[in-house]
């Protein structure tokens, strides 16, 4: 048993740390650090720099740009990226559709899609949830009916994150409505969102931002060679994808950055009895949160060192569940530090600092993290059934 990183791991970490801080533009990293909205260009720029240096898709097979890294190296890659506030490679590309195509797609699909997916020359969005299929994803009703060399797609998707920027969508569709189990009749289809019959409608969120969309399909014709794997096997591919998603949204590094900022702000905030950071009640809250984050980080390291076979580990549900709660706790902390200065939004030339004006919307926006990627309740069900055998 040894706590310290090996000298090779330290060198690897330091190299990445240096790369992130020198190669990714500081304006972009500052926008991430302070929670400001990123433009499509920001995300593409950062993704391309990472990809040009072989750092966008280390979790993919080596033949397609992946790295033969140890789980610890992979962990350091992501952790340092978050600590440096580098926008992560677009999750829909790098963590979702890319690994699915690499694992289950034909050689032709791989050659056609994997290079532009890694480079973010194609921006993917996710067509999974539907109005009546949220946590119960397998109840989805969007249909794809075979017609010669095409499928004809009809139906509706919802919560499609950053769909307004997307070029293509990967979509779960029902190809066999008569399958004995609802999971059995689902297929995994890829198509261009500019195809005739696709309509994207943005949904305004609680903080006034636009992140998610509704997507409507009306007789959308999709070439049949854009089916991933086999027809009616889509549920298997979707489960593989969701397992990968869970591991990547723990966000320990991101939460650390938020707590670091919170302490800076608390140090500058007067309470009438010294600074807020000197207040014993406040300090106890910060200490508690930091400790919970440390416990999660160590748990993540344990999961990392136990998942060398590359299969999603059911313990990743623990990481998603707890990671999302601590991300929220950090936004609560920031809001409470801002106090009444959190009330104005987007106001320039007033005394309330910009960071404080951002904490209200930030807090409200982050209520999403215990809902997406499988809600906390879904994660608890996975833990109780898969790990505890209940």
């Amino acid at each position, binding site marked *: *048993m040894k*706590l310290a990183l090996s000298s090779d791991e330290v060198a690897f970490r330091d190299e990445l740390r240096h790369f992130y801080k020198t190669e990714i533009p500081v304006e972009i990293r500052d926008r991430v650090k302070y929670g400001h909205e990123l433009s499509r260009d920001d995300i593409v720029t950062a993704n391309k720099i990472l990809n040009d240096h072989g750092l966008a898709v280390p979790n993919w097979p080596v033949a397609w740009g992946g790295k033969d890294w140890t789980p610890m190296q992979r962990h350091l890659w992501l952790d340092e990226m978050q600590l440096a506030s580098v926008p992560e490679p677009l999750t829909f590309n790098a963590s979702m559709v890319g690994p699915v195509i690499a694992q289950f797609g034909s050689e032709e699909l791989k050659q056609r899609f994997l290079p532009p997916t890694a480079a973010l020359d194609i921006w993917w969005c996710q067509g999974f949830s539907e109005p009546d299929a949220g946590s119960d994803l397998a109840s989805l009703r969007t249909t794809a009916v075979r017609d010669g060399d095409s499928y004809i797609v009809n139906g509706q998707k919802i919560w499609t994150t950053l769909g307004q920027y997307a070029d293509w969508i990967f979509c779960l569709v029902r190809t066999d409505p008569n399958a004995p189990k609802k999971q059995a009749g689902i297929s995994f289809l890829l198509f261009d969102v500019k195809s005739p019959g696709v309509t994207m409608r943005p949904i305004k969120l609680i903080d006034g931002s636009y992140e998610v969309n509704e997507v409507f399909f009306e007789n959308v014709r999709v070439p049949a060679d854009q089916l991933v794997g086999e027809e009616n096997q889509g549920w298997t591919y979707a489960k593989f994808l969701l397992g990968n998603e869970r591991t990547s949204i723990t966000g320990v590094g991101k939460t650390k950055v938020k707590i*670091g900022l919170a302490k800076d702000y608390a140090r500058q905030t007067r309470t009438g009895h010294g600074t807020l950071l000197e207040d014993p009640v406040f300090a106890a809250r910060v200490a508690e949160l930091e400790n919970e984050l*440390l416990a999660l980080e160590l748990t993540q390291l344990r999961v990392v060192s136990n998942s060398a076979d590359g299969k999603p580990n059911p313990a990743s549900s623990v990481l998603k569940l707890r990671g999302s709660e601590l991300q929220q706790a950090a936004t609560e902390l920031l809001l409470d530090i801002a106090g009444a200065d959190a009330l104005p939004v987007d106001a320039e030339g007033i005394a309330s600092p910009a960071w404080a004006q951002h904490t209200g919307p930030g807090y409200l926006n982050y209520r999403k993290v215990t809902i997406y990627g499988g809600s906390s*309740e879904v994660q608890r069900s996975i*833990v*109780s059934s898969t790990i505890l055998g*209940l």
Partner: protein
Amino acid sequence: MDLELTEEQTMLRDTVRELLHRFYDGEALAKAGETDPGWNRTVWKQLADLGVLGLTIDEDDGGVGASPVEVMLVQEELGRALAPEPVLDAVVIPAELLKLTGSAEQRGRLLPALAAGEKLLAFAHAEPGQRWPSTEITTAAAAQGDGYTLTGVKNPVLRGDVADELIVSAVLPGGGTGLFLVDPAGTGVTKRAYRTFDGRRGAQFDFDGAAGELLGDTVDAAEQIALVQGYAQAALCAESVGAMEIALTLTTEYLKTRKQFGVTLSKFQTLTQRAADCYVSLELARSMSLFATAALADGGNDPVVASRARLQVGKSAEHIGQEAIQMHGGIGVTAEYPVSHYVARLTAIGQTLGGALEHRRILADRVGSYDLPEL
């Protein structure tokens, strides 16, 4: 970084687990604390023969000279089995104090006997009116001839009921804290033994001019005491993790078998969702316990690391303990079923060497002195 066990460590764990399992099944476990001294001399002898009692003691002093990893493995097994043998209080803590402060003669006299299970010691340090981590003590040592006499009160002294000798902290005439060997049956010593609510034992000692033999020539043992307490904190964490794991296992087994409304309790999501939260608590506690052990194994003995681990482990223990009883229902509060004993032990650990309040305060006091906590 490596948090895995070696093959030898796994073997040690399995051997201890098997030994304890032979003695402490459900019924024996529930009855273990009923008659004095609340533990089993046969188990004690077997632990000694296995080398478990001498793990922390150097080979030259009759021990095994193992690392903290082995010691914590054993603590976790004691926690899992809820074995009441006083390994930590009567052997590990006294041995660590002796190693850090005892003269060669004192170490040679006591450490082999501790490793062999022939002698039990207890550390008499806590005093009425003082809370951990206070270092203020009022028990005073007065020089008399070649030695010292001690006057003062020590309570609680865990496992003081069975101690063959005590290690007592007292203020030296020159002002520092000295550690003294005291015969609990000697003149000027009054012992009042009692049960603790986890079925274990302790005692209060009143010293009135009792003869004491100074350990080594240490003029102030405050630092050594802090180091030994840091070690003990990691041990309490490991024991807690073992006990929590079984408390949760007992609970999930109960949910799978107990039927109400014609179905097993495992069909009720209101229970299974809470069991999942208990599992999260267990894993967070396990991570922090490993952190404390790995830090000790790396040669560090940092009171902040100890408090980090104790805070998380204590919160997890309270959560799992309360939920384990609640999900068992009425049977969970009976002494006839094992789960209540696990919860009592976890609760007692929560008030030993600081509770969540004290450990949280230690962390809160320094929160402004750094940006981000580092591993």
